[in-house]
């Protein structure tokens, strides 16, 4: 049995435990099921938002009603019932396990395989953090240090209260509320997410991650992240984690907006390992994410790295709008699908400014009965004098029941611009496998080794600790797919 199926079961089992752990008589602040204008108003009111933000949410909601479901991606799923979901729930008061001893040992085993530090395990397994593990103090230490440097790092709801002028200026400036069906829904009902502002000339000394954010609540299904790097600033941001994440919501429609001004650089790394559903793909998470970065300033740079192994359906295209002259966009991606998973992911590089460059390295690995699609756009606008793009998409098929697809759109409107695109599809060769086996490796270790080699270019762009975990994750995701 595949390892991720095991973990799924573990997580499910854990979910059951939680169910019994809920204290039902405590008043849970839960809005009724369904979506309508009143829900949008309620969310805004609960968060004590200014009038302009409510207006914005309502505009998004009204626009959303008129939008058709996007049908172009190569993914299949029954129509979403938007009325059969909760859109607002205040942080629930639940009786969390007091320590790791109360956690299913099988889940802990998976964490161990991934080499996740003990303290982190506690957070992931949902152990009541404040009670057992002093993350607050760690985070507070960091927060004080960051504040000293003028870095703002808080939840977006908090930022709306404390820095409304920044939020108002940048929110929706990269992903407008009318962008696409899922992003529009997010604009109407987002409840949480991160806000980062790095002031002029500041280089953020640590890798920022939601993990260190104080008051960490359930991130929710409609997460909204806004990161602004002012002139000459630098920040590296980590999202997600390698461990399987437990979540009750099926639809996740997050929006991430990045803004890089002159000479600024943003590095955004994601490892996504949400519940992919059972072997038949039932019950997995739909991950419909809109991520976009704007290189507004000269010499700015935005780099996306993603390792996508979870979710039943991934629909995600982290993009760069290269507006400033000499700006740079990068996209490094590994997408692994197994069982019935479907991933349609890629990027968009829109070259507007002069001498802008972009680089796309995408590795898709499909196993089981899954489908993995790379879909990307490289557009050289008429004014993109001297712009350059290099794209490489490689797909690896494991087994004869899966599919790997490549759908690049290449539009070149400037003669001095250069676009290069290469794509290959292959499988793990018998020779490679035989060589590893005769050196005494098990077939699973061999596959893990070969696939890690295949993804190397991408994995090495991840921050150090992340990279180590991601490598293990690659192997674990494919366990049981060969032999």
């Amino acid at each position, binding site marked *: 049995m595949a390892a991720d199926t095991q973990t799924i079961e573990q997580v499910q089992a854990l979910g059951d435990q939680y169910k019994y752990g809920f204290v039902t008589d405590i008043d849970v602040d839960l809005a009724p099921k369904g979506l309508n204008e009143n829900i949008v108003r309620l969310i805004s009111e609960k968060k004590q938002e200014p009038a302009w933000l409510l207006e914005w949410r309502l505009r998004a909601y009204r626009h959303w009603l008129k939008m058709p479901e996007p049908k172009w991606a190569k993914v299949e799923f029954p129509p979403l019932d938007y009325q059969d979901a909760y859109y607002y729930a205040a942080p629930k008061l639940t009786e969390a396990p007091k320590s790791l001893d109360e956690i299913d040992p099988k889940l802990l085993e998976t964490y161990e395989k991934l080499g996740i530090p003990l303290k982190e395990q506690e957070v992931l397994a949902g152990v009541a953090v404040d009670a057992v593990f002093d993350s607050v103090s760690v985070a507070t230490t960091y927060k004080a240090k960051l504040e000293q440097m003028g870095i703002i790092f808080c939840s977006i709801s908090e930022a709306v209260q404390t820095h409304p002028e920044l939020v108002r200026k940048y929110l929706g400036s990269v992903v407008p509320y009318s962008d696409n069906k899922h992003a529009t829904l997010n604009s109407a009902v987002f409840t949480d997410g991160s806000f980062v502002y790095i002031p002029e000339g500041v280089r953020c000394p640590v890798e920022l991650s939601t993990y260190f954010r104080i008051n960490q609540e359930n991130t929710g299904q409609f997460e909204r992240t806004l990161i602004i790097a002012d002139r000459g600033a630098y920040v590296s941001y980590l999202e997600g984690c390698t461990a399987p994440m437990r979540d009750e919501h099926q639809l996740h429609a997050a929006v991430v907006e990045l803004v890089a001004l002159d000479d600024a650089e943003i590095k955004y790394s994601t490892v996504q390992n949400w519940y992919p559903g059972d072997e038949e793909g039932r019950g997995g998470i739909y991950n419909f994410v809109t991520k976009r970065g704007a290189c507004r300033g000269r010499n700015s740079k935005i780099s996306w790295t993603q390792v996508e192994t979870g979710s039943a359906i991934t629909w995600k295209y982290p993009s760069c709008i290269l507006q400033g002259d000499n700006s740079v966009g990068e996209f490094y991606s590994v997408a692994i699908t197994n069982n019935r998973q479907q991933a349609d992911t890629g990027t968009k590089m829109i070259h507007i400014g002069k001498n802008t460059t972009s680089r796309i390295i995408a590795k898709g690995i499909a196993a089981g009965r899954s489908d993995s699609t790379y879909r990307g756009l490289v557009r050289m606008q*008429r004014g993109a004098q001297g712009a350059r793009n290099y794209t490489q998409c490689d797909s690896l098929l494991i087994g004869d029941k899966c599919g790997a697809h*490549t759908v690049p759109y290449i539009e070149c409107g400037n*003669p001095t611009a250069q676009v*290069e695109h290469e794509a290959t599809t292959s499988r793990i060769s018998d020779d490679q496998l035989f060589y590893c086996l005769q050196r005494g490796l098990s077939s699973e270790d061999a596959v893990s080794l070969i696939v890690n080699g295949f993804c190397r270019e991408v994995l090495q762009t991840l921050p150090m600790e992340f990279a180590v975990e991601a490598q293990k994750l690659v192997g674990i995701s494919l366990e049981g797919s060969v032999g």
Partner: protein
Amino acid sequence: MSVMETSASGTATPPWLTDLRARASETYEALGWPTQRVEDWRYTRLPERKDARGPGAAGAPELGAIPAAGANRAVLVNGRYRPDLSTLVDLPSAVQIGGLADVLRHDPDLVELYIGRLARLPNMPMTALNTSNLTDGIFVRVPAEYDLEQPLHLVSLGHGDDAAAQHPRILVVLEEGASARIVEHHTGSGSYFTNAISEFDLADGARLEHVKLQLEAPAATHVAGNYLGLGPEAQYEGFVLQTGGTVGRNEVHAYLGSSESDFTLNGVYLAAGRQVLDNTTRVQHAAPSSRSRQTFKGVLNAGARGVFQGKVLVERDAQQTDAHQLSRAVLLSSGAEVDAKPELEIYADDVRCSHGATAGELDEAALFYLESRGIPPTTARHMLVEGFLGETVDEISIEPAKDLIRAEIRSWLEANVDKKSRDPA
């Protein structure tokens, strides 16, 4: 279907044909004229000519101006076969070449066996439109094991104004082990609209060399579907030149439904002014051990747009497929644009599939080198473009067609590429 068509033959239309036309008509009505909202047409706006369904007045076509690309020539004018303009000599009786209407009259069952088998209607509005107008065309059948050595020149002439639409239809059948060399040549005068369909049915071990020339009148619009079916060990070697028309779109749909078939398709497109030239290909590998190779090269001058959409589909059973595709475009001056969408859809694991796409300008260093050797800038640019296209053109094995294509490239360069086109506006 116009009234004129049914009365022209004088004899009863076979019921299957009436039925086929009716289905085609229904399909077309349901799909409508393609717009850019349809994914397959996102890069090419096809000027609407849906009212122009009748053929233009048959004028006096000047065949003398069309260089011969083979000893045997069959001619269509506005989609109608013209025996008076065709020359077919030295053909054994077993080889059938002639008007489709004629074969429909004398041997409708033979046509029924093949027509519309490859050019399927679903999702293809223009194919449906052509089929709903099906009355005439060219029919070619080469019997088993026969080698039609002499290139066969099939000419389709368009004639007429904005209200003229023609739907030329070509059906080529190569029986087991037969081989043929065919030059399909589209040209004409006026601002007519061509919607051509050609079907090539290659049985076991058959071999076809095919050159398609899209040299329509500058004001014309050309849309074409080339449908190919390859039997076991069949071989297809094709080449497409597009440089005519205001809007030109050539679609190639190849179905590799048997093992060990081999498909090669190369293409060159040259666009200037406000031209839009589109090459769309779809290669479907449905059986094990088939091979496909595609290389398309485009040269675009100010204001023109080139489109390449190439899809390679490898089905579950098509193990050991070897497929490669390459799209390269040179933009000669600002205002030119190329849009490429090379697509791989793969469901088998033991395959080797790759594609590549590039776009850029002529190599400045190479230009400088040539100029430093005393070669005038315009000549240097011509040399580089000819070199870029040369390796693809050189592979054409039908000599008269190769000469014709080289001449077309040269005259296009003379007309469009000079020193000035280098400087951005």
